[in-house]
């Protein structure tokens, strides 16, 4: 259940500790945190097996975070033209937003050395977390929790 409140980071961490690996969590809204958007930026490629394994996790997150100030976006590591990128994304079952190369350039991210790589960006596009390699949903939730972007509820 979403409960508007200011981030209580320490309490949330304590909650996470108490309730262990619970998957019950709620995103904060933009009004709760600030007016900017955080972004989970997932670099993928069609030929990257662990990337394909991760896709359902990010699809799920994009739905669950839809009303929050955290946006899930994807980047085609291969820099294919946008039309082809969208075609590949469809084939891979990607249901979250895929950025154009122009949008990627605006983020000014260092190109990852490993696929998949997922960045968590602050509203000012500062990299606050870099998750290298295939991630579990819990890893991503932990990164969001660490930034006070979600909270665990009972």
């Amino acid at each position, binding site marked *: 259940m979403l409960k508007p409140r200011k981030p209580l980071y320490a309490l949330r961490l304590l909650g996470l500790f108490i309730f262990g690996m619970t998957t019950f969590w709620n995103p904060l809204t933009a009004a709760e945190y600030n007016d900017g958007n955080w972004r989970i930026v997932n670099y993928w490629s*069609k030929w990257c097996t*662990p990337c394909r394994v991760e896709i359902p996790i990010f699809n799920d997150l994009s739905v669950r975070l839809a009303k929050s100030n955290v946006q899930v976006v994807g980047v085609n590591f291969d820099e294919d033209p946008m039309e082809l990128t969208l075609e590949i994304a469809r084939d891979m079952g990607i249901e979250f937003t895929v950025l154009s190369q122009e949008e990627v350039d605006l983020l000014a991210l260092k190109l990852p050395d490993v696929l998949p790589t997922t960045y968590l960006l602050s509203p000012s596009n500062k990299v606050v977390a870099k998750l290298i390699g295939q991630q579990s949903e819990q890893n991503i939730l932990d990164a969001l929790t660490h930034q006070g972007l979600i909270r665990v509820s009972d």
Partner: protein
Amino acid sequence: MIRLIESGTAALRGLLLALSISITSYAAGQEQLTLLPSPAPDNSSLSRVVANESGEIYLSWVSQDADQATLAFARLTSEGWDAAQVIGEGRNWFVNWADFPGLSVDSSGMVAHWLQMSATGTYDYDIRARFYSQDKAAWTEARTIHTDGISAEHGFVSMLPFSDGTTLISWLDGRETVHSEPPGAMTLRAAIFDKSGANISEWKLAHRVCDCCQTSSAMTEKGPIIVYRDRSQQEVRDIYATRLVDGAWTLPQAIYNDNWQIAGCPVNGPSVAAMNKSVAVAWFSAKDDIPKIQLVLSTNSGLSFSKSIVVGSLNTNGRVDTTILESGDIIVSWMDTAGEAKIMLSRFDITGGLLGTTKVAVSSASRRSGFPIIEALGNSVYVTWTDIDATPQVKVARIDY
């Protein structure tokens, strides 16, 4: 100090003059850098340069027009490049910036490979090859080099002239990643093919390797050596080598324990070069998110290797290649990403001492710029890359040491 040698037409001289502004600002030694005219057309990329034992240089590339890909090559003679020849073309190729076609040449013929999508399976592709016999002056029909018949990923091919006109081909084979639960791992396989393309011998060399990194092979005095990125059960992805000795492949051994543990694809394979008993292996790693290029050397045909030598660190995205000069010096090509990306060639003596580093060209960290490839001929190195500044085009240069 680099001295720039002009060649070719007035237009080329103009280009060289423009380039010389940046080139001459990177003094590194007494080497001479010459930008050669490119035989590759606009919209070309994915080039490789290779020499045969007669001292002929061959350049291969892929050109793309809409959804059609064409693999072609040209030979460099004293008069310049021969007319380009098409090896194969198709609309169902898997064209990828890291896993791309290759050409192997020796005095008896050539072998070329490319990747072609399987009939079924979105991410599945086969390795197709044609064999050219100098005797018959003809290419064979294209054939699939692996005989599994399984729709899966196959790629990251290395080709090496072997003996009596045969060719050793090694590749990553995903046949065990499908049709089993849990899925198996990517494997490393190799086979020897005769001039007609017939498979003479085939081996499974490693049962669990990194899915997305290039393999590399070279011929030492004692036989071939293949290097690749391994994948342990704990997801450590260090570089391993195996050698064919007296008809049997040695147990793969780590050439260096980076202990780089990642559940992902670095897309950055190792490169090996050999001459007589000298062997050089260069590779990229990014343990603790610190990018690094390292080099190890062997003076006993790969039986053992030196301690690692750091070629570059922090500001690099890898994309290494290696070759050995007639003098015995080792050349490593790599990408320097400090500021604008640059293609660099570092030269080492056989003890690992750095003799100098040369900037070849400004490039891009973009995947579309691909992997620069180098090949030694005497004490010169030919280097090819893709310039993506405007319309992509394959470039070639020679550095005389």
